[in-house]
């Protein structure tokens, strides 16, 4: 078992942060390559289609699960480790536990990818498609990560526990519960399983990726802007309101379904309540960044700014989508796909990039090329704007076609140009990830590049 005697120096924390980032990046490139392939199938349905493992219905869950559990999960846990150690003025509790966790994350994602390709899908229940034993491996990775984060913060050299760690440790622990609830079968028959799906699919996003990404923001923004967070108390308030409101909103994925009407209405009410932590958190970040536009230029802060705006707009959009009147138009259309990309990409992915560009060079003392960072930023930003714009407009057209009682196939032909634009946006996003991968290499294992200016000595808290 892991021992508490760790070699002194920053090496373990740095190495863990580096290797987690490298693994996450490999998953990002793979999962989004699949995404591009999927987007092309909308325009060219006969493209790469005669083979069972290349069929749309098998590749789609590979794209979503590898994005979630390969890219975002591994990337965020790597950041969480670094932030836990640095904000606690200590080193990571156990390198071995971190490596074990990383191995489990990767084994789960590799096994999940292969089995989904073979057509082993645990019921096409979104984001829990992996066969359940594979999800147990992922759960083990979560438990290992929670243990390591807790033990790191427990031996902190500071009086307070910095806010970032509230979010990251909370997120990992809550997600252990989500994973268990999703796996146990006794209350998941027929309509009962629909209720669990509604709960699961939103909690797996909002109590896993959201708190970890917010944890990164609470640490990275003060670092990048050299000033403490605007209001620590507001951050604590957002933490508790997020925790209490978020678990209740899941059923808004099943409005107008045979789920009990009170469950649907409760979900709508709390979807509105979510504006409190979302606007509170966003205001806190934006007020911390205010008045320092010079810090944005050619800086990882650009990614952080887009990430905060993605959080603000994506989550607010989510609240509006939960209204019955708007669901009548947008539910079941491609609008929803635009929303999920605005949040998972415009918010979560940009925050990870901001965190990696902002913090990894502090760990490795190797800075990326600022031109290449800029190319990554602009391709990803333009790409996601085209992507979300196309699907939002197209999804609205689709919904109105249905409301106007046109033959169903009309809504398919009307989507054609929007699906093409989506593929254009998606391709730009994918290409930007190749640039990111190069930059990650530059920040970790490339030789040369020891040109980082000394980190500014300003504490996060």
């Amino acid at each position, binding site marked *: 078992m892991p021992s508490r005697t760790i070699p002194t120096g920053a090496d373990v924390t740095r190495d863990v942060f580096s290797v987690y980032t490298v693994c996450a990046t490999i998953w990002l490139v793979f999962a989004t390559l699949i995404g591009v392939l999927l987007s092309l199938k909308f325009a060219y349905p006969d493209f790469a289609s005669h083979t069972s493992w290349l069929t*749309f219905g098998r590749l*789609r869950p590979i794209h979503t699960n590898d994005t979630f559990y390969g890219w975002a999960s591994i990337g965020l846990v790597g950041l969480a480790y670094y932030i836990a150690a640095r904000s606690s003025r200590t080193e990571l509790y156990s390198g071995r536990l971190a490596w074990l966790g990383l191995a489990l994350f990767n084994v789960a994602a590799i096994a999940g990818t292969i089995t989904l390709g073979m057509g082993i899908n645990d019921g096409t229940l979104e984001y829990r498609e992996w066969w359940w034993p594979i999800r147990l491996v992922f759960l083990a990775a979560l438990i290992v990560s929670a243990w390591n984060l807790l033990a790191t*913060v427990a031996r902190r050299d500071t009086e307070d526990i910095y806010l970032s760690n509230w979010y990251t440790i909370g997120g990992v622990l809550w997600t252990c519960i989500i994973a268990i609830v999703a796996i146990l079968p006794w209350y998941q*028959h*027929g309509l009962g399983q629909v209720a669990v799906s509604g709960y699961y699919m939103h909690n797996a996003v909002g109590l896993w990726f959201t708190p970890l990404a917010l944890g990164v923001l609470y640490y990275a923004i003060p670092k990048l802007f050299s000033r403490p967070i605007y209001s620590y108390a507001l951050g604590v308030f957002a933490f508790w309101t997020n925790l209490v409101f978020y678990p209740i909103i899941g059923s808004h994925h099943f409005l107008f379904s*045979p789920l009990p009407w009170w469950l649907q209405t409760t979900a709508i009410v709390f979807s509105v309540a979510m504006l409190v932590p979302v606007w509170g958190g966003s205001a806190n970040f934006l007020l911390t960044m205010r008045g320092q536009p010079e810090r944005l230029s050619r800086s990882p802060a650009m990614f952080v700014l887009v990430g905060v705006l993605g959080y603000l707009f994506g989550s607010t959009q989510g609240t509006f989508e939960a209204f019955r009147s708007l669901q009548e138009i947008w539910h079941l259309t491609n609008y*929803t796909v635009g929303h999920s990309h605005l949040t998972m990409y415009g918010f979560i992915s940009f925050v990870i990039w901001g965190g990696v560009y902002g913090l990894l060079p502090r760990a490795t003392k190797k800075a990326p090329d600022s031109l290449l960072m800029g190319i990554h930023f602009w391709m990803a930003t333009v790409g996601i704007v085209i992507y979300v714009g196309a699907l939002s407009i197209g999804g609205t057209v689709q919904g109105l076609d249905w409301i106007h009682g046109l033959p169903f196939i009309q809504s398919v032909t009307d989507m054609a140009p929007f699906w093409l634009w989506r593929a254009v946006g998606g391709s730009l996003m994918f290409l930007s990830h190749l640039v990111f991968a190069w930059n990650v290499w530059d920040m970790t294992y490339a030789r040369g590049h020891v040109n980082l200016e000394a980190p500014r000595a300003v504490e996060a808290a």
Partner: protein
Amino acid sequence: MSKLTLIAGGSTLVYAVLAVLMGVLPGMVLSRTKPGPGVMPLTPLQREGRDVFVANGCSYCHTQQVRPLAEDAVFGRPSSAGDYAYETPELLGSERNGPDLTNIGVRQPSEVWQYMHLYNPRSVVPQSIMPDFSFLFEVVAKAPAGVTPLAIPKPYAPEHGVVIPTRKAQALVAYLLSRKQATIPGYSPPATAPSGTAAAAAAATSSATAAGKASFDAAAGARLFAANCQSCHQASGEGIPGVFPPLKGDPVETAADPTEQISIILHGLEGKTIGGVAYPGQMPAFAAQLGDDEIADIIGHERTSWGNNAPLATAAQVAAERAKPAH
């Protein structure tokens, strides 16, 4: 208690309570939902087909939930809780890149069509973007005894040999054809806005008929034809040779008396030989899905398109035919 225990333990406890309240408890209660009247478990073959449906991710583009909204009425009556008693894993879905399948066994009961559509969706619906499932079929030199090969139109057929379904394709089609909503005793669908306007149009039509001149709503006829008839008889009205009969120049479609045409649309058709060709498919009955005026509009479209030029039918004639005892 330490700060860390308070924050981590406290928040986790709060979350655990909420997870039980919002996830586990509703799951427990709703798992006990009784099957609705007439809702039956699947047969072993249909069950196998459902597994094929899941393995290939069909529900990423096809929902199985009809919402109590006017726009969803084309897919059937609103789904009720009792419909899902045997539905584990649940396949409600979240996106409709393709149509809802709750009632596909009623809307498209033809096995022949389902096989062709799975082998290559564009062979029957040219605009379709559905993936082909040709990997569920085999190409053989000659079909074994007792197996009917698929009648694939030229551009989509393999160069040599014939196409026959594998067991997986057979099971999948069995599952799809099992997708029929059970009738809820005493339930009648509320009048929806589109049929309300159609009723007004029908009133106008019948007064026109009284004046001795039948007419129909051409726009509605074209739209209804596209939604209900086109996937077999094709937009060209030419059908698919040997599989789905043409409407262009067909004797029933061009007869002066539309009664037989009305009857076929109301009650469906199977096993008829037309012009010396025995058609294997099954045409669904539309009596339960289309109103009198809607059927009159479809007939109007068919009798005035593709060079057809025959007397129209009125909603009153459809109503009269509907009132006759079923054959």
